[in-house]
């Protein structure tokens, strides 16, 4: 039987029947892994941290309180009320009550019985206790990850799988670190490299690739609910992509996670904050904004505030603070006051809560940061220099104009105040005071007219206008960022209703977690400092868990958005703690952590599923094999572009508009307030990586399926499959054109077999083996028969996409090979990261 905490009890409970499990289990019941989950799921809703909803004044989450209400008698389950109530047949007595729709199984009752018999000891929830570095299991594994994973496997009499074939491994790590497939040359070089650290060299190459940041930013975009428009009516466009580019740069530079986070949360509050640090805070402003007519700005501002609380708590604490918006948390020791103390950190931006209107397609809310691109900045500097140069001459020009005015005959001098007229008499000697008086009149009343007339001054003003106009062009980036410029009181809100203010609160961090450092400012910057104090139990664990999820599909705690009391038990808790301490003590270096992960034997093992492995560990919780992961749709498109050679490798910039079905935004076009025509890109912008595709929040890009909706923070990876995904990859012009380009790319390989093998290599990162060459030959032969008989169909198939076709390739041959390449992109092995 597995020991407690291993992943198997759930299965055993459901499939084998747990009475046997518990009766024979030799180890004492563990509160954290075995008891609290039962109490939390079934009891805490009415007998937990929320004082307002507590029934019979009984709380079971605190031992002393439970004992005070005689919920159980340690050592004596038979007389314990808890046990009696769970077993009662009386609908008035039984717990949980029937209308709670919760069931405590006989096995769970037995666990509780044994726990009470053993003394009913409590433990703090493991994730709320500062992690300490556990000792490595002494099994000789060099990589600590393997030491922990192998130890757990060994306890179940299992082992790691053998290392994956080298080509498979290179494709895996290349896709995981850069989101692109390895080139045939890269694969060949790796296969030919027999040095001991051949693999590590590949890892270092990939970590240094600029494509790395483009891959690693994707989970951040989901967490940051990033989009290129506000959402809702008018769905105004934004410039938040400038922040996206900032983040890609920082990820590529491996800015340590503590600094990265601090800048995103509070870069504006850092001493002498740079524009880049202020830009970082756009993280807090990527939320939806509702610009509907008639809406109540303050209500909408609170919608944004609640969103910021949820997003920051999920991203850095792995906790669901939203529950405490209306009442004390039902499961975690988080009070409603904690919630509003946290909210205060985000409540001081000089924002309205709704975007502004206007004729532009952009709809923004203050505060804004002007952040021109280098090209724009250079152009502005040029215009400014031109103006400055001319402006230096202004005093002289003005003097000349004044002298000319004085020299004019009286009738041409315009209206002059009576008292000044004598001063203008010819040969009049004026005192300094008189001169000043006269000059003041000229400057105020006459010069503005001269200014419009005199060519030198006209040029000066035109230069000024050019500067101003350039800064107000529609595409002058103005990024929504954070600021604490507005003093506002924060209150606890009754049931979360923005008009129902209760007691006033100021910034505070949740009371059950370590205190705010005494010298920390009481604002977002203090919040960031608090997250990264060494004794914080959550920050490092939550981030390490998400990094693990990126490489294994699931976190060590599978509920990666929640490490609270209701979270799933970690599959490898000691490993999680070891990695968390390592990450923190090593200076929060993400690339180092990732390098440790991808160089482990655990990561490098084969993904082959064996019947025995499937039976012993169907969910692969023990990691006796590498998971096979369906690639995110954003990367599936990138793979097609890369393999076909169409990919435009430009880093960053404004969003682009690749192929979509006709009129993808047609359902928004009802509004007369702006044009919702999809402005399909031309040329190289059709082939940028998917992360640059314009993401309209109300209608996500149609060909990027199974994604986060970018409405709210999402950190958990969840993959599903639907026939619609297949239809997209079979019929979208993106894939059809990529197939045509791939066929063209491999045409020069010589014969059918070589062409197919090369295309296969480009898409799948390895050569076809076994029966595959024969099956590929069949595929091509069948398509050739179809297109040989139907030249019109061949021409039609080759007409998809804007990239040029090489007319030297016979159309029938090209069409047949195109259809074969389309099949390659749709192979399970192509869609999947083996």
């Amino acid at each position: 039987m597995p020991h407690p905490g291993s992943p198997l009890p759930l299965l055993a409970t459901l499939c084998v029947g747990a009475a046997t499990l518990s009766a024979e289990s030799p180890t004492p019941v563990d509160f954290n892994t075995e008891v609290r989950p039962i109490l939390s799921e079934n009891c805490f809703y009415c007998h937990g941290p929320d004082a307002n909803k507590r029934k019979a004044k009984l709380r079971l989450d605190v031992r002393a309180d439970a004992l005070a209400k005689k919920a159980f008698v340690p050592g004596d389950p038979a007389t314990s009320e808890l046990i009696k109530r769970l077993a009662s047949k009386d609908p008035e007595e039984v717990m949980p009550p029937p209308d709670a729709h919760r069931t405590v199984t006989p096995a769970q009752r037995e666990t509780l019985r044994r726990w009470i018999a053993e003394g009913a000891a409590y433990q703090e929830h493991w994730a709320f206790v500062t992690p300490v570095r556990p000792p490595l299991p002494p099994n000789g594994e060099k990589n600590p990850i393997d030491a922990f994973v192998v130890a757990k496997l060994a306890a179940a009499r299992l082992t790691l799988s053998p290392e994956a074939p080298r080509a498979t491994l290179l494709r895996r790590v290349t896709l995981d670190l850069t989101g692109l497939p390895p080139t045939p040359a890269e694969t060949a070089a790796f296969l030919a490299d027999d040095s001991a650290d051949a693999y590590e060299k590949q890892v270092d190459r990939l970590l240094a690739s600029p494509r790395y940041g483009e891959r690693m930013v994707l989970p951040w975009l989901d967490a940051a609910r990033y989009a290129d428009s506000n959402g809702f009516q008018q769905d105004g466009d934004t410039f938040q992509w400038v922040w996206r580019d900032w983040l890609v740069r920082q990820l590529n530079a491996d800015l340590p996670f503590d600094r990265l986070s601090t800048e995103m949360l509070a870069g504006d509050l850092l001493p002498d904050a740079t524009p880049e640090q202020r830009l970082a805070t756009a993280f807090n402003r990527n939320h939806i904004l509702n610009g509907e007519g008639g809406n109540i700005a303050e209500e909408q501002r609170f919608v944004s505030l609640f969103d910021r609380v949820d997003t920051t708590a999920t991203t850095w604490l792995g906790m669901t603070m939203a529950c405490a918006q209306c009442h004390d948390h039902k499961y975690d020791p988080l009070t409603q006051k904690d919630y509003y103390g946290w909210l205060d950190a985000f409540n001081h931006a000089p924002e309205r809560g709704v975007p502004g209107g206007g004729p532009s397609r952009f709809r923004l809310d203050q505060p804004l940061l002007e952040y021109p691109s280098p090209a724009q900045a250079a152009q502005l500097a040029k215009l400014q220099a031109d103006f400055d140069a001319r402006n230096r001459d202004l005093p002289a020009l003005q003097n000349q104009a004044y002298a000319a005015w004085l020299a004019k005959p009286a009738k041409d001098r315009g209206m002059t105040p009576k008292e000044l007229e004598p001063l203008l008499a010819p040969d009049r000697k004026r005192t300094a005071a008189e001169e000043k008086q006269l000059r003041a009149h000229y400057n105020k009343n006459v010069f503005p007219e001269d200014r419009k007339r005199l060519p030198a001054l006209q040029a000066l003003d035109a230069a000024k206008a050019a500067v101003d106009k350039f800064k107000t062009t529609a595409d002058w980036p103005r990024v929504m960022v954070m600021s604490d410029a507005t003093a506002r009181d924060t209150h606890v809100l009754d049931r979360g209703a923005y008009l129902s203010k209760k007691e006033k609160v100021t910034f505070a961090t949740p009371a059950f977690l370590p205190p705010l450092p005494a010298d920390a400012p009481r604002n977002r910057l203090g919040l960031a400092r608090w997250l990264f104090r060494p004794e914080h139990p959550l920050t490092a664990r939550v981030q390490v868990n998400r990094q693990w999820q990126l490489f294994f599909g699931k976190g060590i705690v599978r509920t990666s958005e929640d490490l609270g009391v209701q979270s799933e038990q970690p599959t490898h808790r000691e490993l999680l703690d070891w990695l968390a301490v390592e990450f923190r003590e090593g200076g929060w270096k993400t690339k180092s952590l990732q390098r440790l992960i991808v160089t482990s034997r655990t990561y490098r093992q084969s993904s082959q599923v064996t019947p025995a492995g499937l039976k012993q560990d169907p969910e692969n919780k023990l990691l006796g094999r590498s998971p096979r992961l369906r690639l995110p749709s954003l990367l599936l498109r990138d793979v097609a572009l890369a393999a076909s050679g169409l990919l435009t490798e430009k880093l960053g910039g404004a969003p682009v508009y690749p192929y979509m079905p006709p009129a993808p935004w047609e359902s928004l076009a009802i509004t007369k307030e702006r044009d919702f025509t999809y402005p399909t890109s031309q040329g190289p912008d059709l082939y940028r990586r998917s992360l640059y595709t314009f993401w309209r929040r109300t209608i996500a890009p149609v060909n990027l399926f199974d994604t986060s909706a970018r409405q709210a923070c999402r950190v958990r990876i969840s993959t599903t499959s639907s026939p619609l995904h297949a239809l997209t990859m079979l019929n979208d012009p993106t894939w059809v054109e990529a197939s045509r380009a791939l066929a063209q790319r491999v045409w020069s390989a010589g014969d059918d077999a070589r062409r197919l093998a090369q295309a296969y290599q480009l898409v799948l990162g390895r050569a076809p083996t076994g029966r595959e060459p024969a099956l590929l030959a069949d595929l091509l032969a069948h398509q050739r028969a179809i297109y040989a008989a139907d030249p019109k169909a061949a021409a039609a198939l080759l007409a998809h996409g804007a990239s040029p076709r090489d007319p030297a390739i016979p159309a029938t041959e090209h069409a047949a090979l195109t259809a074969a390449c389309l099949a390659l992109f749709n192979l399970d092995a192509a869609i999947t990261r083996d």
Partner: protein
Amino acid sequence: MLTRRSFLNAGVQGIGTVALSALLSKDLFAAKPDALGALPGLPHFAPKAKRVICLWQGGGPSHVDLFDQKPTLAKEAGKDIPAGIRGDTRLSSMSSGYAKWPAVPAIKPFARHGQCGRELSTLIPHIGSIADEICVVRSMNTEAVNHAPGVTFFMTGSQIPGRPAVGAWLSYGLGTMNEDLPAYVVMTSSDKTKTCGQLFFEHYWSNGFLPGKHQGVRFRGVGEPVPYVGNPAGVDRAARRTMLDDLQALNREHYAAAGDPEIDTRISQYEMAFRMQASVPDLLDFRNEPKAVLEMYGPDVLTPGSFANNCLIARRLAERGVRFTQLMHAGWDQHNNLFTQLELQCRDTDQPSAALVKDLKQRGLLDDTLVIWGGEFGRTPFGQNQQGQGYKGRDHFGRAYSWWLAGGGVKKGHVYGETDDFGWNVVKDSVHIHDMQATLLHLCGINHEALTFRYQGRQFRLTDVHGKLVRGLVA
């Protein structure tokens, strides 16, 4: 085909309880061939409705003009609605600052319909003709003051986007009755002159935190009905079949090497996609619809993207076992054009709505198909003087408004709930948005408190922590 083993893999969605549920429900397929992929234990009890058609009337149809006759508004026309009636009602910021609240009577007379003698506006004679089939609910109410939050509230249980829509919950809980079509279909239409300006956002049919396959699939009125359902030019169905056969042979070869049952699932997904490529065009092929049936739906029935066209498709989807069909029409936001636009809206929607109910009935489908007709709120009983142009319309009003329901276990020829003399406050049998959701789920055989999904450490459900079944609606 999907195999039992396919579900025992680590590659797709949350395994653990979810996979085991799927596995267990798999065993029920033989007993219940009409539902694939239902959660174990669902439906919780015998459903009255096997499918739901929601005829969403976006913008906020005026209850006092259409469904809830108020002679007092006529008697007191032009006079301020008393402060005692108005209370502290939260109104949109377009009218909340008004100094005057002049009562505006219904713009057209009401008439009695059917054996039940239901009083309905003469603007909606066709709905009048099904008065004995429908249950008018006059006590709907919501906290939302604006369109998108209001629509989101009914669709997902929260005013803020991000949670699963009701159709996604039904697909998740009850599974699908036809694998060749999506379980949850959305269609949109809008008033012809585009005066309404209400838009359709994907979060109105979102899967939220439920697995992505439960997301509503929007059939579009332009281009292909379902994106990418058609083969690219140069590929016909036979060519595609040939290509898929060779693709699947390669996949099976890979399965032999990789051993992952997920490959099996992938093969079946591609087969389903192939079948969907046939079933969608078949769905939209009206050639065999009798002329009399087409005429029932009115003159727009053959115009793609019209409400009438969508209503006919809805009936065909119901015949094919689609679980939840969500028609979203935008056209009812009459702030300053009530006297001209309301009638046009009624003309576009009245006949097709009634035709759908009659058509379902004549095919024996109405008994187990629930039809819902309503919008995100009603409209103010007082006149809106937008930009000082005179009292030409009504503002948003969520404190009381009307819907109607038909079929699927709902009382026939019935009226439920009552408002005060001004149509301002509910005075009897309140039906809050969450109550309506609870009732909808109940009619589908679901206890709304027991259809939950664990996310962020908590059991989420459509009705949040609210909602009461409205027994008075249920036959």
